[in-house]
């Protein structure tokens, strides 16, 4: 009986020792991994593009964030990049408005593909004053699951370069108006891990609850 007892005590001691060793190893690992990364190397120097202070997402006002998303959408809708292999692959445009993507493919994509093949380049600018609400004076952002649709009138300015590599070429300026019906709710999409999402190289635009549901007639 005594022998059995001492065997079990020995066994318990062994297990305890093993656990302690394991914990020590974990502690060692934690100690090694907890470090402040004081130097970060970057491929290019982007610092002069990042003027202004860094802002937490909670510091940006709701309207400001919404305007940034509208600008991004309009920019993706019209921009032309020279020599693009497949213009219909615009994941950002798709994620910002699944319903309107097919319509875009039918109307704008063909023009963009033609321009891209001719090595033309087009940039789109929307100023904050260019975004106006229609019908509603004041939006109340509901905390309900479904965000309310709001109509916007967005005035944009486009600069188009007709040929590449000619430094004397001036862009042709053009302006127009596009009407968007969009749903927007402040905050980040529920059930999404921001860290994982960004680590996988997805576009940060997709994090926000913004969706263009309809596009109205536009006049140039």
């Amino acid at each position, binding site marked *: 009986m005594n022998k059995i007892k001492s065997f079990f005590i020995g066994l318990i001691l062994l297990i305890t020792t093993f656990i302690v060793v394991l914990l020590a190893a974990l502690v060692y690992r934690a100690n090694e991994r*907890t470090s402040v990364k004081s130097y970060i190397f970057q491929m290019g120097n982007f610092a002069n593009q990042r003027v202004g202070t860094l802002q937490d997402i909670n510091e940006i006002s709701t309207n400001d964030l919404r305007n940034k998303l509208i600008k991004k959408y309009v920019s993706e809708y019209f921009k032309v990049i020279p020599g693009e292999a497949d213009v219909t692959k615009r994941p950002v445009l798709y994620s910002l408005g699944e319903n309107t993507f097919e319509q875009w493919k039918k109307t704008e994509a063909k023009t963009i593909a033609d321009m891209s093949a001719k090595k033309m*380049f087009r940039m789109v600018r929307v100023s904050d004053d260019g975004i106006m609400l229609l019908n509603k004076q004041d939006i109340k952002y509901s905390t309900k699951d479904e965000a309310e649709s709001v109509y916007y009138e967005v005035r944009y300015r486009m600069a188009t370069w007709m040929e590449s590599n000619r430094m004397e070429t001036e862009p042709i300026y053009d302006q127009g108006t596009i009407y968007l019906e969009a749903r927007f709710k402040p905050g980040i999409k529920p059930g999404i891990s921001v860290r994982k999402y*960004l680590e996988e190289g997805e576009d940060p635009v997709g994090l926000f609850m913004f969706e263009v549901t309809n596009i109205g007639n536009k006049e140039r």
Partner: protein
Amino acid sequence: MDYPNNFDIPSFSAGRTVAFSRSVSIWISIVFFLIIAACGFVLLGIHFKQNYPFLISIDPFTDDWSVVTYPNEKKAVSQYQLIQEKLVNDYIKNWFTISGNNEINESRWQECSVDECQNPEQFNPYNFECALSCKSSSKLFDDFSRDVLPEYRARVSQGNEKWTVVSKLFTNEKITINSGHWQFVVEIASNINGPFKVLGFIQIERDISMYPATFGYYVQDFNAYRIPNE
């Protein structure tokens, strides 16, 4: 059996004391172990609480949203990315530099055969001989000679214009071992027209047999546009 209390054995009168001290020592060991474990958990907790900030920046020119994050396995810079970056860097410099010395200019703009390009000097950033021809696809160099070069030569002959690349800024998108799409913004100083900004796109491809001096990488397409001063 009620172990420490009821442990009286007639033959060993100190049994109760011994049993009691044993129990106490076991309990002390257990508490000690728990303390160590708690320390370990505290440290583990710190480990998991590390916060890595993500920086989302919006490009004022192109409205691109980009993310800067800590260097992890997925974001590690690969050799081919570095080689491509070097090629892009040298190429932009050579494309937009107009020297005051016309011999250097003509040397930079001359066309060289594949054999002449098989020269390790091609990877030297200060080398300007055939610097464009040896790193471009033949179609791109033809376009350069036909469309861009006459304009450059006119600038040199008419007003002795000089161009220097002041600052370069480029971002990369879609980099693989065999190709890469790059976007850049450069500022160029002209001694006659002042500084101006250029935004452009570079497409890199790879062909080891044709471009051995640059590890096979060459510029397949180059499109640049001058941004008017606001």
